């Protein structure tokens, strides 16, 4: 801890002595005039000059290096009227501005232009997709609007079925995705069976999905970072929403409180018939979740917020032989964001907890199973604005996870364990942006892991270069090294993992590592049509997986392997006043080698095409369409069946009379591929203003329109085929006040 503070002090002093040249600055915040909500990615320009920038996800902006004089500063954000403020700036002065923009109610234009605005704001980033609330609205949904369902159709992302929201990014496994919700680390962000996430889409302001090229402030995962930022809530007036879907009801309230704002949303399931269609059998599944946030403005364009998220899923079965299940998530966190002089500070402290419990009701003497992970996460980072667009960022983080599990294994023995880990990271990054058309991010991150008196150290260089040779085209490249010290023990062959245990990587194993290389081209083919291409190569080392050669109980469960993945992603987007469409195609390979066995993970889908479209029909009705086409997932084929005998007990001659049970002899691991997956979903949505500020939102969706029988899995012992979702009609009614 002392060493980390010393290093940070040196970085700060370095910054002061080397870069602190006195210059004029304008900083401030951009807000929605009606709700007081900050507006991410608004454009701020100093008119008739070269100076300009974009607001960050918290609506904050900083422009440095402005000459003395009187200027007009204009903030624009699509969906809002622009606003101009006159300033008279003098030598060495920093002026603070607060823009309150009046919203214009245009539904589809919102989708189109918000995404365009994001594209500009992320022009120095690589492999980042920012998803807005508006994009979530147009995606046809089976039961719940879900951020993870939108993520699953992004380029480079694959999934293994309709039923699960688990996603796999660029050949990485499911546990290699970091999920941050208001800077709280969420380990198990799914409702039961992973059907959808615990995040209520109505409270989400913006979601950043990073499929590669992570900045050094992010560490601890190899394949993706999903950063979800929730709304602050309406600080000017009370408002609410009531939504009724075919499986759950949801209420949202927001309004001013104690000089700040509150937003709170609660969702509760009430129908089981949808789950029946999902899972093929009637399961008494019941869930709820609550997402809340309190935000208070503080001096210097800052804010203090307190977030909480709670979710609980139950399956209570009446039969004594059928176990009851419980899944629980809880997370609380505080966040302070403040601007001091030319620094922007972001400090977060959170506690998150996740638990899974199986109650066997004492049936046949079986012990109950339980696993839980609790985590304290502290993260502090600072951005320092230097010459014009140069930015120095640095910070540190502490992660203190505790894992506990207890279960009875197949031989009847109870396995219990409790593991504590400490992980800390420190990073520094320099963004070089003073040359027009060229951006270079150079950074480094160091991680220290302490577990069972062992210390491991990891060093992670990161570099990102963007170059714009023409105004319509940008070339991008990045290299990054990432380490991961927490993994799940879920078996890749489990169809739906019900009991996933997070474990720290202990000696004799080393933290998992990934070296990633990305190259990209982004181009605007016309005012309405844009195209991007990305190619990536990832090399994995120390990948922990099940020991494929394990024969004896004394043999280790895990073995360390290697892997690589590579692929190409094509993304075409068209947008005009009435049509918003994107089509992406991913061609990818993922390979693993463990114990001299070479195989591809089951989510290695060679080709994936996704089409998402929204068209505005007359009477402001929106027609939405989603079509997915993908190579089938991999599976291990069966070479044949026989009746397998249990030969353990020779106490009597009973084994002679054993007729055995059906058993499929497996071929090479994941050597076969299921048939092509494809599914078409369409829907209509309409917003009606009933009376003054009362709005009614209606949405109907037809899922799997042509009732494609996509295979979910095949029982290897019985040969039974289980299919994914059949044709479904879903509806959604929302009342907004």
């Amino acid at each position, binding site marked *: 801890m002392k060493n980390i503070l010393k290093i940070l002090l040196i970085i700060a002093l370095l910054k002061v002595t080397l870069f602190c040249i006195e210059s004029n600055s304008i900083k401030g915040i951009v807000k929605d005039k009606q709700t007081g909500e900050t507006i991410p990615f608004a454009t701020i320009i100093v008119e008739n000059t070269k100076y300009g920038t974009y607001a960050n996800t918290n609506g904050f902006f900083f422009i440095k290096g402005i000459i003395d004089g009187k200027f007009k500063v204009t903030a624009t954000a699509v969906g809002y009227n622009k606003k101009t403020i006159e300033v008279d700036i003098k030598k060495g002065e920093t002026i603070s501005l607060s823009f309150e923009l009046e919203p214009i109610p245009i539904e589809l234009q919102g989708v189109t232009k918000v995404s365009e605005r994001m594209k500009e704001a992320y022009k120095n980033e690589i492999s980042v997709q920012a998803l807005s609330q508006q994009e979530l609205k147009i995606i046809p949904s089976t039961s719940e609007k879900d951020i993870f369902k939108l993520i699953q159709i992004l380029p480079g992302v694959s999934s293994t079925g309709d039923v699960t929201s688990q996603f796999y990014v660029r050949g990485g496994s499911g546990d290699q995705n970091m999920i941050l919700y208001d800077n709280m680390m969420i380990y198990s962000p799914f409702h039961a069976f992973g059907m959808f996430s615990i995040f209520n889409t109505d409270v989400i302001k913006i979601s950043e999905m990073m499929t590669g090229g992570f900045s050094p402030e992010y560490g601890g995962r190899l394949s993706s970072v999903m950063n979800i930022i929730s709304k602050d809530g309406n600080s000017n007036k009370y408002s609410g929403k009531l939504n009724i879907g075919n499986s759950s009801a949801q209420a949202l309230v927001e309004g001013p409180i104690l000089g700040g704002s509150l937003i709170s949303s609660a969702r509760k399931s009430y129908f089981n018939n949808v789950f029946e269609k999902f899972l093929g059998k009637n399961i008494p599944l019941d869930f709820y979740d609550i997402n809340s946030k309190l935000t208070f403005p503080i001096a210097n364009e800052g804010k203090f917020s307190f977030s909480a998220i709670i979710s609980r899923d139950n399956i209570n079965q009446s039969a004594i032989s059928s176990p009851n299940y419980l899944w629980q998530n809880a997370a609380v966190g505080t966040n302070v964001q403040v601007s001091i002089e030319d620094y922007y500070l972001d400090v977060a402290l959170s506690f998150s907890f996740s638990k899974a419990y199986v109650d066997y009701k004492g049936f046949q*003497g079986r012990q109950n199973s339980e696993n839980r992970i609790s985590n304290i996460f502290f993260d502090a980072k600072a951005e320092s604005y230097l010459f014009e667009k140069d930015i120095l960022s640095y910070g540190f983080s502490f992660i203190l996870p505790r894992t506990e599990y207890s279960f009875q*294994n*197949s*031989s*009847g*023995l109870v*396995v219990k364990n409790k593991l504590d880990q400490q992980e800390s990271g420190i990073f520094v990054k320099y963004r070089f942006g003073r040359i027009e058309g060229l951006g270079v991010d150079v950074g480094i991150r160091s991680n220290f892991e302490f577990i069972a008196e062992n210390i491991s150290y990891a060093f992670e260089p990161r570099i990102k270069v963007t170059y714009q040779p023409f105004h319509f085209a940008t070339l991008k490249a990045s290299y990054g090294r990432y380490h991961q010290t927490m993994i799940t*023990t879920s*078996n890749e*062959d*489990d169809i739906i993992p019900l009991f996933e245990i997070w474990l720290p990587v202990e000696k004799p194993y080393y933290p998992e590592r990934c070296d990633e290389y990305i190259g990209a081209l982004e181009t605007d083919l016309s005012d309405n049509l844009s195209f991007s291409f990305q190619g990536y190569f990832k090399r994995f080392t120390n990948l922990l997986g*099940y020991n494929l050669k*394990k*024969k*004896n*109980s*004394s043999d280790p*469960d895990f073995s360390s392997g290697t892997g690589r993945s590579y692929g190409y992603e094509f993304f075409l987007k068209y947008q005009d006043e009435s049509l918003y469409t994107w089509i992406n195609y991913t061609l990818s390979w993922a390979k693993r080698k463990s114990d001299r066995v070479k195989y591809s993970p089951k989510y290695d889908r060679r080709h994936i095409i996704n089409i998402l479209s929204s*068209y505005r*029909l007359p009477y402001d009705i929106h027609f939405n369409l989603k*079509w997915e086409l993908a190579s089938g997932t991999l599976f291990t*084929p*069966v*070479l*044949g*069946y*026989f*009746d*397998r*005998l*249990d*030969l*353990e007990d*020779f*106490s009597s001659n009973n084994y*002679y*009379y054993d*007729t*055995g049970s*059906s*058993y*499929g*002899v497996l*071929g090479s691991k994941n*050597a*076969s591929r299921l*048939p092509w997956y*494809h599914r*078409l979903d*369409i829907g209509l949505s309409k917003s009606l203003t009933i009376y003054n500020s009362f709005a009614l939102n209606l949405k109907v969706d037809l899922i799997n*329109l*042509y*009732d*494609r*029988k996509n295979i979910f899995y*095949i029982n*290897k012992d*019985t*040969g039974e*085929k289980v299919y994914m979702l059949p044709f479904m009609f879903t509806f959604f009614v929302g009342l907004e006040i």
Partner: protein
Amino acid sequence: MIKKIVSILFIILFFTSCNDDFDIVKDYHEQLVVFLVLDNRADKQIIKIQKLQNDVGLNDNNKVLKDLSVRLIDTYGVAHYFKDTVLNGVNNFNVLFVDSLDLKEGTYSLFVNSGNKLYAWSNVTVRAPQLIYVSSFNEYYKINISKSASSRGVLVKSFVCFDRVDNGITTSDMMEIPSKFSVNGTDTTEIYPAVEKSDYSENKSIEVIIGYNAIVYTKQKIINRYHIESKDIKKIKIFSFSYDWNLYEYIMSYKGYSDPYSVRLDRPNYSNIIFGNGVFGAIRVDSTEIKP
């Protein structure tokens, strides 16, 4: 525009509504499935044979073979031919036997043919008898077993032997003594010995403890269940099961890595049958008795 949308949907529907015919079985070849465990106690060595199937749930007639020829070459090179027989309720296997086989320490080879089409073979090593020593202490018996060097898995089970009367007929019975037990009110937990790995290379002794409290617990259980008197409890019998490498590996794969610290859920397969499936193993069972 609406017409265009409808047309596109119609085309998509037309081309995509077909569903693929798909089979999970790939590269199927007919093979023999063989189960034979040479058991030093058995009067007849029983072999069960089946055909590998290309689908599940096939009729038993599709699982058995014709023209089977099975021979076992003993450690002296003498061939023993198996004959057809029938086991009550076992219709999904061909059942054959060979009798009067005096198992000796050494390697045995098995050859199975079905006509000229299918064949499979394998070897197994039969071990020498094990010596069992019992020592009595204040609170327990200590059992020492001199294990064969080639033994891979060992299981020591102890039983309380007793006589019980059913409908006027006296029959001898046994109840296994748990290696561990706990009683909490009406809640009882019993753990019985499982097959344990023994070192392949060393010829060393195995030590097992049988607590007097476990014997008393079992005796009381017998008395409560069968309403017999203490005098009907005759003796304690201790069995040592020594599994050869192949049988041990097969059992471990069948149980699916069930060890105390395992968290894996997958289930592997093990077979030592060349050009086939199943297992050809050997078990050496020795026993001794003590008076309680």
